[in-house]
């Protein structure tokens, strides 16, 4: 019984934490990074802080949290191979945002500023929508 209650509380805590991502991301100036070698997309500060730990949120993404359960970065594994196929609206936008040949492509805020803002807003709403649809794995 206690275990079940703890799990419900943790689930609520995770949902609230994910809903706060847009505010935290703006405050901490998160950037979008596509690691083409690893196949992962990150939405996080340039450096994810020490002592953050990675937790799966849905089948599509996971989040680095600090000790106080504040989000410190989003990681989407198999971004090109999987996520984009399930989320068609990211296809064209990704090509516009990630234009360099670097294996780790950090979206540059000076270029394509509008496209990056659209990308971030779309990503934030997708993350929140997926937990709202009960896709949370916990």
């Amino acid at each position, binding site marked *: 019984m206690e275990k079940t209650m703890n799990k419900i509380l943790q689930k609520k805590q995770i949902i609230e934490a994910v809903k706060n991502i847009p505010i935290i991301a703006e405050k901490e100036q998160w950037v979008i990074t596509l*690691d083409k070698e690893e196949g992962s997309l990150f939405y996080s500060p*340039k*450096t994810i802080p020490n002592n953050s*730990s990675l937790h799966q949120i849905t089948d599509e993404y996971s989040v680095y949290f600090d000790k106080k359960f504040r989000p410190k970065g989003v990681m989407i594994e198999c971004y090109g191979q999987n996520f984009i196929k399930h989320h068609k609206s990211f296809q064209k936008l990704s090509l516009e945002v990630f234009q360099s040949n670097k294996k780790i492509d950090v979206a540059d805020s000076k270029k394509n500023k509008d496209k990056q803002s659209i990308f971030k807003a779309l990503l934030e709403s997708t993350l929140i929508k997926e937990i709202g649809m009960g896709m949370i794995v916990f």
Partner: protein
Amino acid sequence: MSNYYIKTKNIFGVNVIFTEKQREEKMLKHPELRQESFADRIKKTIENPDFIYQDLSDKRRSVYYSREYAIDSKIVYTKIILKNGNKECFVITAYRPDYVKERSKTKLLYGKDNE
């Protein structure tokens, strides 16, 4: 300073290299790679993994896992993505997730993943 962060042999006796340059590139987004103790866990996982999956997106890669500990019945793993070369393997990255992305999605190459 050595160019190798880790140099060892995997469970099949093949040389595995994790360069310092590669670690520095990956540690910005994987804070685990900044922890000194994690190097030891990576080495142990390469040498003696609990299970290995084929990578989801690239068949020339394999993904090594070791079970570390459990929090509220969720197991935390050391995960290492390896690129297989002809004579040696290279570590692409390593981190510590509380899930196995490849489970039921790709081929289990070694060991048992019975969670």
